[in-house]
């Protein structure tokens, strides 16, 4: 019985996170309520609070995405796109947290700050290893490109870029990563 119960608890947590991602993504941070999330899962709002804390805590947990970037310090500039894109695909196509965060960030300052902060702490340090100068601008412009790719491929629907295979997209995106991260800085 104890094993059964703990498995149920894990399942309930997972269900709450999954519902929370959907609500935050479609209704935004401000309009989403813990009560609505609890009702979707069929539990009490008090249980959501017991598991995750406040709405902002739940948001942080539900949209926390893991990205593993390789050590780029010895990277050949021509290989940067090939090194990065598979990691990005994993984040925006195989994991719902990032897209939920990006959607919520479009209509919420709190969510936008969370996204900016996450990029600064989880993505910037790995990219910093390759930038010869202007690291903040280079990295933020690279993030902008990645966000645009994620939005046009996985959120906005049938745009020209959604039909490209990962391999084809990687080939076309590689010169952009190269230029933004290590190309000549504007004079």
């Amino acid at each position, binding site marked *: 019985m104890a094993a059964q119960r703990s498995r149920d608890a894990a399942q309930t947590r997972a269900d709450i996170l999954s519902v929370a991602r959907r609500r935050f993504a479609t*209704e935004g941070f401000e309009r989403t309520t813990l009560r609505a999330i609890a009702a979707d899962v069929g539990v009490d709002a008090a249980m959501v609070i017991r598991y995750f804390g406040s709405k902002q805590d739940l948001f942080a947990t539900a949209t926390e995405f893991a990205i593993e970037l390789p050590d780029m310090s010895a990277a050949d500039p021509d290989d940067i796109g090939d090194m990065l894109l598979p990691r990005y695909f994993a984040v925006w196509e195989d994991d719902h947290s990032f897209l939920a965060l990006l959607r919520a960030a479009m209509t919420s300052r709190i969510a936008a700050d969370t*996204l900016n902060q996450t990029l600064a702490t989880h993505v910037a340090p790995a990219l910093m290893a390759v930038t010869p100068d202007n690291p903040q601008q280079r990295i933020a412009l690279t993030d*902008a490109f990645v*966000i645009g790719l994620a939005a046009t491929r996985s959120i*906005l*629907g049938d745009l020209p870029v959604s039909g490209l295979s990962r391999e084809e997209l990687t*080939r*076309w995106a590689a010169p952009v990563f190269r*230029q933004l991260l290590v190309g000549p800085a504007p004079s």
Partner: protein
Amino acid sequence: MTATRPRNAGQTRADILSAARRRFGTEGYEGTTLRAVAADVGVDAALVIRYFGSKQDLFAAAADFSIDLPDLSDIDPDKVAGILLPRFFAVWEEDETFLALLRAAMTSPVAADTLRRVFAEQVAPKLITATPDHPIQRIGLMGAFVIGLATTRYVLLNPPVASLSRDELTRWAAPVIRQLLVGPAP
């Protein structure tokens, strides 16, 4: 008295559109109600319906904008970015329609459909005139780059990109735009 009525009606329509852009932009398509838009303007929801029809019709009217891109077929590749970016800045910064549409499009299929139509009808045909080959790949990635820049600079307000001047951003973005639209195919 009859002379002022058309002007007031015109002003009310303009006020409704402006309130609608603000609501759609901050609350998304699904979160916006005709009643809330009407309340912002101080009119009745029935008046909004009489002027614009359904919520979807109001959205279409509020998100209707034109981006005026030139034909790029005979442009020097080094000048393409310099020609395009001022037009993009004009759309991004000089009226609130595009940003309202972009914000709403990320959370609503109806709004995403409108954004795709703007891209397909107004942006893609002009960008294609610059491309020597692989038009789908080139304009697809170009669209991604432009949407990513607008999102990062105006919606997320990520400081390193939001704080660049137009000039600085143009200098950083120009080689990317050149590569995507007219650079060597990989």
